[in-house]
């Protein structure tokens, strides 16, 4: 057990720190301001261009094949500098590298990793949320193409995406988990319309709804085999639940440290319960930072696509919501007299974490049944 940087890791950290000092775009927190979403692509390509993104992914797709623990260093340094978090798309990379043919990997991974091509994820539907396998979007074979009809929701970055990682029903006669397939669908076509969703904190640029009405996708853009969609989706959501994959730790630590700094400027202006909320937010964020170190160290033994992601997701949720509560506590009356208060937005945004990527209740079902081995009801 060694938490220290190796000489290679230390050299990487030093280079990274120097680069961030010069290139930190100083974006507002992702959870509070549309400007973050508008400029996120810029940050992605800048990080990638400087050699600081896609660290653990295959070299032939633009990655660097470094051990996953290098992402820990990236998160550390981004948090310390108050820079935006790394782009959250590791789970799509895991889905494609685990299931797609070589040709599909070669076609899509370089653009995804470099940020040259932007992606959104078309899984959830208005009537298929927690019960994802009930989704009704169809993909009907028509010559060398599939024709897509349906309605997707909670589609992050749908307004800027070049591609949609779409889950659709290709076999209406198969049992509901077996009739699904995955596709890379080009977003720029007449059969697709997308609408922004306004979240409870006022953000409009993160989530969208996408309506497919006779949209077309080449059959060769299928990811994995026909009927493999559910397995692919499960690989993706297991990693979408991992803070090590989505890189949010730096966001939580930055907010926790900002709150600490605010209290430190005039400690006597805060009640003991407000200070305790801030101290607890720091404890949770530190726990998550150390948990990610442990998980990414375990990857030295190989990547696990199992149910452990649900544990990670719950820990991440509790952390984000502790940070949200601390922000609200420290803001005091400001959060209710000023509708644009940043702490208010951080708090309201944090409520989504126990829903997105699978609700906390779904995670607990998975932990109880697949990790603890409790009987299904």
């Amino acid at each position: 057990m060694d938490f220290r940087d190796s000489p290679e890791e230390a050299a990487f950290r030093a280079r990274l720190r120097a680069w961030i000092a010069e290139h930190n775009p100083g974006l507002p927190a992702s959870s509070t301001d549309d400007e973050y979403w508008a400029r996120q692509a810029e940050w992605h390509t800048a990080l990638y261009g400087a050699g600081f993104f896609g660290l653990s992914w295959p070299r032939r797709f633009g990655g660097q094949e470094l051990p996953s623990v290098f992402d820990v260093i990236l998160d550390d340094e981004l948090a310390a500098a108050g820079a935006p978090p790394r782009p959250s798309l590791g789970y799509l990379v895991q889905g494609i590298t685990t299931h797609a043919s070589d040709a599909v990997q070669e076609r899509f991974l370089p653009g995804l990793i470099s940020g040259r091509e932007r992606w959104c994820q078309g899984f959830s539907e208005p009537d298929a949320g927690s019960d994802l396998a009930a989704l009704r979007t169809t993909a009907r074979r028509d010559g060398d193409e599939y024709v897509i009809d349906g309605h997707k929701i909670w589609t992050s970055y749908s307004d800027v995406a070049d591609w949609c990682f779409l889950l659709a029903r290709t076999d209406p006669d198969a049992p509901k988990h077996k009739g699904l397939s995955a596709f890379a669908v080009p977003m720029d076509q007449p059969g697709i319309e997308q609408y922004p969703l306004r979240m409870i904190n006022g953000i409009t640029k993160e989530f969208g709804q996408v309506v497919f009405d006779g949209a077309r996708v080449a059959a060769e853009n299928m990811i994995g085999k026909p009927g493999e969609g559910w397995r692919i989706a499960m690989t993706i959501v297991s990693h979408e639940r991992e803070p090590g994959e989505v890189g949010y730790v730096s966001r939580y630590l930055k907010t926790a440290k900002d709150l600490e700094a605010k209290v430190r400027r005039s400690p006597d202006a805060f009640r003991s319960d407000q200070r305790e909320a801030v101290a607890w937010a720091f404890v949770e964020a530190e726990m998550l930072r150390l948990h990610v170190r442990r998980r990414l160290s375990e990857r030295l033994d190989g990547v696990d696509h199992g149910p452990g992601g649900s544990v990670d997701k719950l820990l991440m949720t509790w952390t984000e919501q502790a940070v949200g509560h601390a922000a609200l506590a420290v803001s005091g009356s400001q959060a209710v007299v000023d509708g644009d208060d940043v702490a208010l937005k951080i708090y309201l945004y944090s409520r989504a974490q126990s829903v997105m990527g699978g609700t906390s209740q779904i995670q607990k079902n998975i932990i109880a049944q697949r990790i603890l081995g409790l009987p299904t009801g």
Partner: protein
Amino acid sequence: MDTRDTPEQAELRSSAGRLTRELGPRSVADLDDGKRSRRLAEAVRDAGWLELRHDGGDGLPFASGVEAAIIAEALGEAVADVPFAGPVLAADLARRAGAAPIDGAVVAFAPDLVDAAVVSGSLTDVPLHAVDAAPGGRLVAYALTPDGEGYRLASIETDAADGGADLTRNVRAIPPGLPVRPVADASRALDRDDLDAWVALGLALTSADLVGTIRGVLDASVGYARERKQYGVAIGSFQAVQHLLAEAHTLMEGAASVAAYPAWAADALAPAEARGAGRVAKAYCARAARTACETAVQVHGGIGNTWDCMVHVHLRRALLSSRWLGDDGEMLRQLGQTRLGVTHGLS
């Protein structure tokens, strides 16, 4: 950076698990089985675990905080009724003071159990507590006496009676008025760094014990939820029960991740930083353990509230491990002082 166990650490973890499972109590009645508990104490001594923090040369301990925490976790998991963290912390303090270890000695703690006792005069002036001492007989407890900026190691001898809420570890009350004598061979004064590093180790060991306690009580509860039937089905098939256990499991994983850091940091980082890591770990583990143990009592239902059900043995152990060297409230108060610049405490 690689936070996995080394092969030696993995081997230590599995052998500690085997030993404590074999000799630890499996029922409340087992706690009265003196033959078993003596075998456990002998096995712990023979394994050399009590010497992990003795001087291994150049004033450095034989083993790091990581190895000591591995043992503490295994003992917590088995609710093993044998002294470990108490004598290990005493030996660690003696080593830092340059003194030879006294077999069976523990550290006397202030009435709130947070800090090692500091005694200014030649007699104890308030009731002190010897935590995790061997039961019965004459006991040597270390205390600190002020010496300029630092402290000198001193000792108290007592026949104080066994006691405490934890049925697996002793808290012996040391009365006021007992002589406090300098430890003759303590050649070094203890400075702030010594005490920070020592406290860091203490927070790491109590946190590790809590991680083990959570694991043990959760295993028992999951097993019970699979067996116990109501409405004709196992209660573990009910979502309400599943969610309680899933939360406790998740808290255990978070606790394990956060507790490993001070165990490593106690020897590897600057003492103040290591102590800060210890505060974070202890705050998290104390809250997690209380929730997990309360969940265990709840899942065991009426039986869980009876003396003969093991889960209160875990809960009681968690209460002592949490309180000893500072519970979550105390840790948050200290984090308020060190990180938020609060000078008059959080309350």
